[in-house]
């Protein structure tokens, strides 16, 4: 990789970003539903260079027992990065960063899940980052929301997540690795299609005006992602219905 430091990097060339995107453009997104046979619900997502897989199990019995809640289901969310997901090997296992991301991601999804339908049970969400390229928490949340829907878990709405950032004094949508590492700010959000924000984090610094602009942009990105999540779920159903007549012939 090319050596870079903050002084000699230019984020824009002819008004386009390093990967040829416009400032308010998402990276290409690919979503696949139901990729794991053993999980109750699952989803694989690619958002630019991020490759993330999410699996949902449950509602099921809680182990260890003392975590159980009598009136509602608990939600457990595990965000994990594979050791090969980044350039330098990541030491495997939970660390401070993944604990935090697990917690905020869980809290981003919990408000829409109807936990009161399943007292004394647990809904387990596992998110594995296979390849990281800035914005893995948002990719993880997007995948987890689709996997939850796929598992048939009742939710008030979907959740979609997207980040905005600031590089070279410009607000950009969905920063990639270079922009995240050497940019001035990063602001990931998660929200319902109705516009209720369930997660908001920020590092770097923004003026109040820039902040408003960044939130606006990230919300636009999240809305676009919601459409893609929807499309993926519809596509899975259509594939299911197309598949079955062929199978009937085989059994005739």
């Amino acid at each position: 990789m090319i050596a870079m430091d903050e002084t000699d990097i230019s984020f824009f060339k002819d008004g386009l970003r390093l990967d040829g995107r416009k400032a308010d453009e998402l990276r290409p997104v690919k979503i696949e539903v139901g990729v794991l046979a053993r999980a109750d619900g699952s989803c694989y997502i690619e958002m630019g260079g991020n490759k993330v897989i999410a699996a949902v199990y449950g509602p099921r019995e809680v182990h260890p027992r003392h975590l159980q809640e009598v009136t509602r289901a608990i939600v457990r969310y595990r965000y994990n990065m594979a050791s090969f997901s980044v350039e330098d090997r990541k030491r495997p296992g939970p660390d401070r960063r993944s604990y935090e991301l697990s917690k905020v991601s869980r809290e981003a999804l919990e408000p829409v899940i109807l936990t009161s339908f399943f007292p004394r049970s647990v809904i387990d969400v596992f998110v594995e980052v296979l390849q990281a390229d800035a914005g893995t928490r948002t990719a993880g949340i997007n995948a987890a929301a689709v996997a939850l829907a796929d598992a048939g878990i009742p939710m008030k709405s979907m959740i979609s997540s997207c980040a905005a950032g600031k590089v070279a004094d410009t607000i950009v949508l969905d920063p990639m690795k270079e922009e995240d590492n050497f940019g001035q700010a990063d602001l990931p959000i998660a929200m319902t299609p109705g516009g209720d924000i369930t997660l908001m984090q920020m590092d770097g610094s923004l003026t109040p005006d820039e902040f408003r602009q960044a939130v606006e942009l990230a919300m636009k990105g999240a809305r676009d992602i919601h459409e893609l999540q929807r499309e993926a779920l519809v596509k899975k159903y259509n594939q299911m219905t197309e598949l079955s007549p062929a199978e009937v012939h085989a059994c005739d």
Partner: protein
Amino acid sequence: MDRKLVVPGDLLSEDAKRSGEGTYICNGSVYSLLYGLANFRDKINVIPLAGKYVPGPGDNVIGVVKDITFSNWIVDISSPYDGLLHISEFPKRIESEDMSKYLHIGSSIMARVKDVDPTMKVELTLNDRKLGLIRAGRVVEMSHTRVPRLIGKGGSMISMLKKELNCSIFVGQNGRIWIHGGAGDTDLALKTINLIEREAHTSGLTDRVVAYLKREKGARS
């Protein structure tokens, strides 16, 4: 019938009175709670494509005894919640020591959910002629979300199957189905149930199953 695929949070209607199963009301409008098929009739119901079975009072279920305590059999009913069959719900009066003589660990039973309390304690009963220990026949498993299609409107599908297949069939709401009959009939029953599970989402299913059975039986004789 008007059916549409929906995802959680989709707006279904602006008339709160049309809210049915699998939906919720927010600010006077009806939204979907689930990823599934919405049926637009008087009420709008959303039928999920997947999900776990949650027992309700009056459900028939098929379970497997997984443990025996002082006065209860603990029964796996393929749900996040175990069923409890109390000794007094056994049709015959038996002593605590003899519990394992009647139902031992691994026994399959056809039972009914007697009551479910708010903490999801599921009480089962065997006090009915058609309930009890499974001694013969076969049990198949399917997704519990497909069970309503196997039963059909007002039981039309299942009564047709029983007649056409010449089998005894017990449908558990938890997606387990018991079939008892001649070897050939049982095999055909299994195939038919498979077909229903695969095509649960299509319309005109009963007619197609009748045609399928006619063809299969024609091939046999």
